[in-house]
């Protein structure tokens, strides 16, 4: 049981405050606590204790009255998140209350939130890939956005650091555009995936199909159990087999004796002291009592999730920062990015009807980026690139079979046809006009201004999506699949749940919010290490990079504190 700041007698002064307890906040808490800082983690939602607070983790469909179906009340409460089709009675308790936390879609944008201890680390997809210099150099090379103040060599040791603790499974490939992690044994491809792999790698020079690299343990690791292939991850894992703050980083932080978690703490703003030239603490609203409380600390880590962190910074106004803390550049709230989503192809695979699999592997395949990685693979149709996720399985929809009755019923007890799909994730350029703004016309349940989100994919992303679909269809057709269909659901941003940017890192305080160690340029004891800090979006899943960037920034914070620089 963690140390919670919920008693009447409250400590208000800490060495460090971490806003948010999701993937990056958990890492900030762990690293700061382990280096001896008395750390307060402010979580806007409730406490979720590992295992104890996973009420649905072992339920079979027939154990719940509606077998996953949501009531009209639940649908109203989760009116935004249900658009993702991921919310069911098994997981509804880990999705935010959309009614209490409104936002405005100036253009369509799906903002998926998890307001509890652990945040979306309980719900994430667990795909974990290193970024490369192809990503960190991209802005500098093609002139979109500003240059990253870091390169792969700066973050490489921190990838190693977080991987060894988190436990990442995968297969090394030696590709420069997708550097290998320190891997636990890879998960296994099934027979159809192996078949498609061999065909794609034979037919398409430079393309690879690998098992997804993921934050699931394939062997016991640091006292946690290995994956049991139940694929019930989003309900919370009783074995602690996937990486979440609840099962991995927060217990490590707790073990130091330096961690205090305060639930139901909505950070209203960060307090800036103009005389001292730095932040002195944060102001919170107790979500249950509406009480205003101030906490002070020497360093403040913002890990509320990309848009919530920026919302807090925008709302932290002072004489010095009239437009939000650290917003001298005018870039705070701008350059919002996400990956494009749900565009690809699928088809049927013949010749494996006598084969099946055992276990519900919570992972799929990955096809690393192969476009625009060198002169040979350069296209003039769009900048940057894309990767694919996907998988093979026995699927089909028995309801579509034009039959019914006794023979039909017996036939659908057998597994359906093998199907295989790939879906692309394209990099989104950092556009200044893809932005969020504080909206004082719409207030949340606690009377606070909300966000208006105004972002869209533009010509470059649409051109990449076109290529994704064409390539996906071609790869599946060349692999001998039947009934291959291409698709593009034309999802607006947000569906990829890889929102990045809005408080970007950069070399120049005039064009960026954060420096190369994630410090707010003009308030150096404020660190932003969640997705808000990202300067470009790569086409690669970002969470592992958040972890590494956070650990790196936390070490820098402690080092600077020791030097009395903060």
């Amino acid at each position, binding site marked *: 049981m963690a140390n919670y700041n919920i008693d009447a007698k409250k400590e208000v002064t800490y060495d460090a405050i971490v806003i948010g307890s999701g993937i990056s906040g958990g890492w900030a808490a762990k690293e700061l606590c382990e280096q001896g800082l008395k750390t307060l983690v402010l979580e806007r939602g409730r406490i979720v204790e590992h295992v104890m607070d996973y009420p649905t983790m*072992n339920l*079979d*469909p*027939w154990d719940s*009255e*509606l*077998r996953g*179906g*949501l*009531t*009209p009340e639940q*649908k109203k409460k989760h009116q935004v998140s249900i658009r993702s*089709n*991921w919310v069911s009675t098994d997981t509804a308790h880990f999705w935010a209350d959309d009614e209490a936390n409104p936002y405005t879609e100036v253009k369509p944008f799906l903002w998926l939130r998890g307001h509890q201890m652990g945040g979306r680390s309980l719900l994430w997809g667990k795909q974990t890939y290193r970024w490369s210099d192809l990503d960190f150099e991209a802005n500098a090379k093609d002139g979109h956005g500003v240059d990253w103040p870091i390169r792969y060599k700066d973050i490489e040791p921190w990838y190693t650091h977080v991987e060894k603790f988190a436990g990442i499974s995968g297969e090394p490939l030696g590709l420069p555009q997708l550097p290998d992690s320190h891997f636990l044994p890879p*998960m*296994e*491809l*099934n*027979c159809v*995936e*192996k078949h498609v792999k061999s065909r794609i790698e034979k037919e398409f020079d430079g393309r690879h199909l690998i098992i997804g690299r993921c934050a699931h343990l394939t062997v016991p690791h640091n006292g946690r159990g290995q994956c*049991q*292939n*139940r694929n019930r991850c989003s309900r919370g894992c009783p074995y602690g087999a996937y990486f979440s703050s609840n099962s991995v980083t927060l217990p490590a932080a707790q073990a130091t004796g330096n961690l205090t978690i305060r639930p139901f703490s909505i950070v209203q703003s960060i307090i800036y002291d103009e005389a001292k030239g730095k932040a002195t603490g944060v102001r919170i609203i107790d979500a249950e009592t509406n009480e205003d409380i101030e906490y002070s600390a020497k360093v403040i880590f913002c890990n509320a999730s990309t848009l919530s962190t920026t919302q807090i910074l925008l709302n932290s106004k002072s004489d010095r920062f009239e437009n939000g803390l650290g917003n001298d550049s005018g870039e705070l709230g701008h350059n919002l990015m996400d990956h494009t989503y*749900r565009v690809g192809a*699928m088809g049927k695979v013949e010749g494996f*009807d*006598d*084969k*099946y*699999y*055992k*276990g*519900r*592997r919570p992972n799929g395949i990955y096809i690393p980026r192969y476009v625009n990685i060198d002169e040979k693979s350069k296209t003039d149709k769009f900048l940057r690139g894309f990767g694919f996720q996907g998988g093979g399985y*026995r*699927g089909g*929809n*028995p*309801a*579509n079979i*034009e*039959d*019914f*009755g*006794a023979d*039909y*019923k*017996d036939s*659908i*007890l*057998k*597994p*359906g046809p093998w*199907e295989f*799909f790939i*879906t692309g994730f394209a990099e989104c350029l950092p556009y200044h006009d893809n932005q969020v703004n504080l909206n004082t016309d719409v207030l949340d349940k606690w009377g606070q201004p909300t966000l208006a989100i105004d972002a869209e994919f533009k010509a470059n992303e649409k051109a990449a999506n076109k290529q994704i679909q064409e390539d996906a269809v071609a790869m599946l057709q060349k692999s001998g699949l039947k009934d291959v*269909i291409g*698709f593009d*659901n034309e999802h607006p941003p947000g569906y990829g749940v890889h929102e990045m940017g809005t408080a970007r890192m950069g070399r120049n305080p005039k064009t960026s919010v954060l420096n190369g160690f994630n410090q707010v340029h003009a308030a150096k004891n404020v660190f932003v290490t969640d997705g808000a800090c990202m300067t470009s979006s790569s086409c690669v899943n970002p969470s592992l990079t958040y972890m590494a960037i956070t650990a790196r920034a936390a070490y820098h914070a402690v080092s600077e504190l020791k030097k009395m620089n903060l």
Partner: protein
Amino acid sequence: MDRRSVLKKTGLLAGAAIAGPSMLSLLHSCKNETRLTWQPEFFTVDEAKTVSTLMDTILPRTETPGALDVKVDMFIDKVISKTYDAMGQQYMRDEIAVFNADCTKDFGAIFIDLDEAKRIEILKEAEKTSGKFNPGIWGTTVGDQEPIGFYRSMKSMAIWAYFTSEEIGENVLNYDPVPGNYEGCIPLSDIGNRWSL
């Protein structure tokens, strides 16, 4: 394999025990004598009879339990009652009425009052005219979905309710709540029926 056949047989017995032998015969009985043995939450008694008969025609009892053995009709009634909003519920009522009106137009009686041959004829036609679901990945339909007719939606709900019933999920399909390892390529003959989870 022995374990599977034992489970299958146990399942069949359990299914029969749950539903009792009388339900099917009641539903198959002639006009005016068709009775409902359960109290619907949402459906009227006549609507419930239509749905029950439809479920039984799509997924009848064979060596394995049928839809009614595992109370698919009762579950669908509950789902519509508890998860549909007022508009969705009204739509369902209207669709049942249209379905029965079509039966009456073509064969002179509502669905439950038709003999089995005529019911089959009705459903064969419905198979052709009620659309097909697009494939989905990760829970999301891909591409532009054409409208799905009443019959296909009911059939889809029936299969969902059937597969997720305890009897079918644990004893007829392959139930393995904690698989442990993943094996990506094994003979189907080692497994038999589809996995339930």
